[in-house]
Protein backbone atom coordinates (compact mmCIF):
# COMPACT_ATOMS: atom_id res chain seq x y z
CA UNK A 1 0.00 0.00 0.00
CA UNK A 2 1.10 3.55 -0.73
CA UNK A 3 -0.38 6.76 0.66
CA UNK A 4 -1.55 9.51 -1.68
CA UNK A 5 -2.03 12.98 -0.23
CA UNK A 6 -3.64 15.93 -1.96
CA UNK A 7 -2.11 19.27 -1.11
CA UNK A 8 -3.43 22.82 -0.97
CA UNK A 9 -6.74 23.56 -2.67
CA UNK A 10 -7.56 20.02 -3.85
CA UNK A 11 -9.33 19.53 -0.55
CA UNK A 12 -9.36 15.74 -0.48
CA UNK A 13 -8.24 13.54 2.42
CA UNK A 14 -5.28 11.18 1.96
CA UNK A 15 -6.05 7.73 0.53
CA UNK A 16 -4.26 4.39 0.62
CA UNK A 17 -4.00 2.42 -2.62
CA UNK A 18 -2.17 -0.58 -4.06
CA UNK A 19 0.45 0.55 -6.58
CA UNK A 20 3.78 -0.82 -7.83
CA UNK A 21 4.63 2.22 -9.96
CA UNK A 22 3.46 5.80 -10.43
CA UNK A 23 1.64 4.60 -13.53
CA UNK A 24 -0.55 2.45 -11.26
CA UNK A 25 -1.21 5.56 -9.14
CA UNK A 26 -2.18 7.51 -12.25
CA UNK A 27 -4.63 4.81 -13.36
CA UNK A 28 -6.24 4.66 -9.90
CA UNK A 29 -6.55 8.41 -9.46
CA UNK A 30 -8.12 8.87 -12.89
CA UNK A 31 -11.02 6.72 -11.74
CA UNK A 32 -12.04 9.68 -9.56
CA UNK A 33 -13.76 12.18 -11.89
CA UNK A 34 -13.18 15.05 -9.43
CA UNK A 35 -9.41 14.53 -9.72
CA UNK A 36 -8.97 14.34 -13.48
CA UNK A 37 -8.80 18.12 -14.08
CA UNK A 38 -6.33 18.47 -11.20
CA UNK A 39 -3.96 15.78 -12.47
CA UNK A 40 -3.26 17.70 -15.69
CA UNK A 41 -1.73 20.57 -13.78
CA UNK A 42 -0.33 18.84 -10.71
CA UNK A 43 3.29 17.97 -10.01
CA UNK A 44 4.20 14.90 -7.95
CA UNK A 45 6.58 14.18 -5.09
CA UNK A 46 7.39 10.78 -3.59
CA UNK A 47 8.53 10.91 0.03
CA UNK A 48 9.07 14.66 -0.38
CA UNK A 49 11.25 14.40 -3.47
CA UNK A 50 9.94 15.80 -6.76
CA UNK A 51 9.62 13.07 -9.41
CA UNK A 52 9.28 13.01 -13.18
CA UNK A 53 9.28 9.34 -14.12
CA UNK A 54 5.98 7.48 -14.41
CA UNK A 55 7.71 4.09 -14.39
CA UNK A 56 9.21 4.77 -10.97
CA UNK A 57 8.85 1.72 -8.70
CA UNK A 58 7.06 2.27 -5.40
CA UNK A 59 7.45 0.36 -2.17
CA UNK A 60 5.10 -0.30 0.69
CA UNK A 61 4.47 2.85 2.75
CA UNK A 62 5.66 5.34 0.13
CA UNK A 63 3.96 8.71 0.41
CA UNK A 64 2.91 10.36 -2.85
CA UNK A 65 2.09 14.08 -2.78
CA UNK A 66 -0.10 15.66 -5.45
CA UNK A 67 0.94 19.31 -5.84
CA UNK A 68 -1.44 21.75 -7.55
CA UNK A 69 -0.34 25.05 -9.17
CA UNK A 70 1.45 27.31 -6.71
CA UNK A 71 1.52 31.02 -5.96
CA UNK A 72 3.67 32.04 -3.04
CA UNK A 73 4.60 35.58 -2.13
Amino acid at each position, binding site marked *: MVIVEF*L*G*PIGKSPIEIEADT*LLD*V*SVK*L*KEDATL*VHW*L*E*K*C*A*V*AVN*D*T*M*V*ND*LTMALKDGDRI*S*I*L*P*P*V*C*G*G
Partner: protein
Amino acid sequence: MELYDKPLDVKEIFSRWLDEEAESNYGAYIPFVGTIRAEDGIEALSFDIYEPLLKDWFDKWQVRAKELGAIVKMAHSIGDVPVHTSSYISAVFSPKRRVALELIDEFVEDFKANAPIWKYDIKDGKRIYAEDRSTPMSGSGLLA
Protein backbone atom coordinates in the same frame (compact mmCIF):
# COMPACT_ATOMS: atom_id res chain seq x y z
CA MET B 1 13.88 29.89 6.36
CA GLU B 2 11.24 31.31 8.68
CA LEU B 3 7.51 30.56 8.67
CA TYR B 4 4.98 32.55 10.71
CA ASP B 5 1.29 31.95 11.35
CA LYS B 6 0.61 35.70 11.06
CA PRO B 7 1.67 38.68 8.92
CA LEU B 8 5.42 39.27 8.90
CA ASP B 9 7.02 41.78 11.24
CA VAL B 10 8.92 43.30 8.33
CA LYS B 11 11.03 45.74 10.33
CA GLU B 12 12.10 43.10 12.83
CA ILE B 13 13.06 40.63 10.11
CA PHE B 14 14.92 43.22 8.00
CA SER B 15 16.86 44.43 11.04
CA ARG B 16 17.65 41.01 12.42
CA TRP B 17 18.95 39.76 9.05
CA LEU B 18 21.10 42.90 8.84
CA ASP B 19 22.53 42.12 12.29
CA GLU B 20 23.04 38.44 11.43
CA GLU B 21 25.30 39.40 8.51
CA ALA B 22 27.02 42.35 10.22
CA GLU B 23 30.35 40.49 10.16
CA SER B 24 30.02 38.75 6.80
CA ASN B 25 31.64 41.55 4.76
CA TYR B 26 28.83 41.75 2.20
CA GLY B 27 28.66 44.77 -0.10
CA ALA B 28 25.01 44.55 -1.13
CA TYR B 29 21.89 43.53 0.83
CA ILE B 30 18.70 43.37 -1.23
CA PRO B 31 15.48 42.34 0.48
CA PHE B 32 12.25 41.85 -1.46
CA VAL B 33 9.17 42.61 0.65
CA GLY B 34 5.83 41.31 -0.66
CA THR B 35 2.78 43.12 0.68
CA ILE B 36 -0.90 42.27 0.14
CA ARG B 37 -2.52 44.82 -2.17
CA ALA B 38 -6.12 45.92 -1.71
CA GLU B 39 -7.74 44.85 -4.98
CA ASP B 40 -10.85 43.07 -6.23
CA GLY B 41 -12.50 43.63 -2.85
CA ILE B 42 -10.34 41.13 -1.00
CA GLU B 43 -9.97 41.39 2.78
CA ALA B 44 -6.85 39.25 2.99
CA LEU B 45 -4.86 36.57 1.23
CA SER B 46 -4.36 33.19 2.86
CA PHE B 47 -1.56 30.66 2.32
CA ASP B 48 -1.05 26.91 2.66
CA ILE B 49 2.56 25.75 2.71
CA TYR B 50 3.96 22.26 2.32
CA GLU B 51 6.92 22.70 4.59
CA PRO B 52 9.14 19.65 3.77
CA LEU B 53 9.29 20.54 0.07
CA LEU B 54 9.69 24.25 0.77
CA LYS B 55 12.66 23.47 2.98
CA ASP B 56 14.10 21.29 0.22
CA TRP B 57 13.57 24.08 -2.34
CA PHE B 58 15.22 26.60 -0.03
CA ASP B 59 18.17 24.30 0.81
CA LYS B 60 18.96 24.02 -2.90
CA TRP B 61 18.92 27.82 -3.20
CA GLN B 62 21.28 28.14 -0.26
CA VAL B 63 23.74 25.88 -2.05
CA ARG B 64 23.38 27.79 -5.31
CA ALA B 65 23.84 31.14 -3.52
CA LYS B 66 26.93 29.86 -1.72
CA GLU B 67 28.50 28.88 -5.06
CA LEU B 68 28.14 32.54 -6.04
CA GLY B 69 29.59 33.75 -2.73
CA ALA B 70 26.14 34.95 -1.65
CA ILE B 71 23.62 34.24 1.09
CA VAL B 72 19.84 33.93 0.69
CA LYS B 73 17.19 34.22 3.38
CA MET B 74 13.41 33.98 3.33
CA ALA B 75 10.36 34.35 5.52
CA HIS B 76 6.72 33.60 4.68
CA SER B 77 3.34 33.63 6.39
CA ILE B 78 0.97 30.68 6.74
CA GLY B 79 -2.79 31.34 6.98
CA ASP B 80 -4.51 34.71 6.66
CA VAL B 81 -2.61 37.92 5.88
CA PRO B 82 -4.75 41.11 5.73
CA VAL B 83 -4.36 43.70 2.96
CA HIS B 84 -1.50 46.17 3.48
CA THR B 85 0.44 43.70 5.61
CA SER B 86 3.29 41.52 4.36
CA SER B 87 3.35 37.77 3.70
CA TYR B 88 6.77 37.34 2.12
CA ILE B 89 10.34 38.56 2.46
CA SER B 90 13.33 37.14 0.73
CA ALA B 91 16.81 38.62 0.66
CA VAL B 92 20.24 38.29 -0.86
CA PHE B 93 23.55 39.32 0.70
CA SER B 94 26.54 39.38 -1.64
CA PRO B 95 29.99 40.93 -1.92
CA LYS B 96 29.09 41.99 -5.47
CA ARG B 97 26.33 44.30 -6.66
CA ARG B 98 25.67 42.47 -9.96
CA VAL B 99 25.46 39.07 -8.28
CA ALA B 100 23.01 40.46 -5.74
CA LEU B 101 20.77 42.15 -8.32
CA GLU B 102 20.63 39.09 -10.57
CA LEU B 103 20.19 36.63 -7.71
CA ILE B 104 17.28 38.43 -6.04
CA ASP B 105 15.45 38.44 -9.39
CA GLU B 106 16.04 34.72 -10.03
CA PHE B 107 15.31 33.80 -6.42
CA VAL B 108 11.98 35.66 -6.29
CA GLU B 109 10.87 34.40 -9.72
CA ASP B 110 11.74 30.78 -8.93
CA PHE B 111 9.94 31.20 -5.62
CA LYS B 112 6.78 32.30 -7.43
CA ALA B 113 7.02 29.39 -9.87
CA ASN B 114 8.21 26.52 -7.70
CA ALA B 115 7.81 27.09 -3.96
CA PRO B 116 5.05 24.74 -2.71
CA ILE B 117 2.72 27.45 -1.47
CA TRP B 118 -0.96 27.86 -2.32
CA LYS B 119 -2.70 31.20 -2.27
CA TYR B 120 -6.34 31.99 -1.56
CA ASP B 121 -8.34 35.20 -1.68
CA ILE B 122 -10.37 35.97 1.42
CA LYS B 123 -13.52 37.66 0.17
CA ASP B 124 -16.75 38.02 2.14
CA GLY B 125 -15.20 35.66 4.67
CA LYS B 126 -14.76 32.91 2.02
CA ARG B 127 -11.39 31.31 1.13
CA ILE B 128 -11.11 31.06 -2.68
CA TYR B 129 -8.12 29.39 -4.39
CA ALA B 130 -6.27 31.95 -6.56
CA GLU B 131 -6.21 29.53 -9.47
CA ASP B 132 -5.83 32.11 -12.23
CA ARG B 133 -2.69 33.53 -10.59
CA SER B 134 -1.12 30.13 -9.85
CA THR B 135 1.59 28.36 -11.84
CA PRO B 136 1.88 24.58 -12.34
CA MET B 137 5.17 23.40 -10.80
CA SER B 138 7.78 21.98 -13.15
CA GLY B 139 6.92 18.37 -13.99
CA SER B 140 3.17 18.97 -13.75
CA GLY B 141 0.81 16.64 -15.60
CA LEU B 142 2.86 13.51 -14.88
CA LEU B 143 -0.17 11.53 -13.71
CA ALA B 144 -2.63 12.89 -16.30
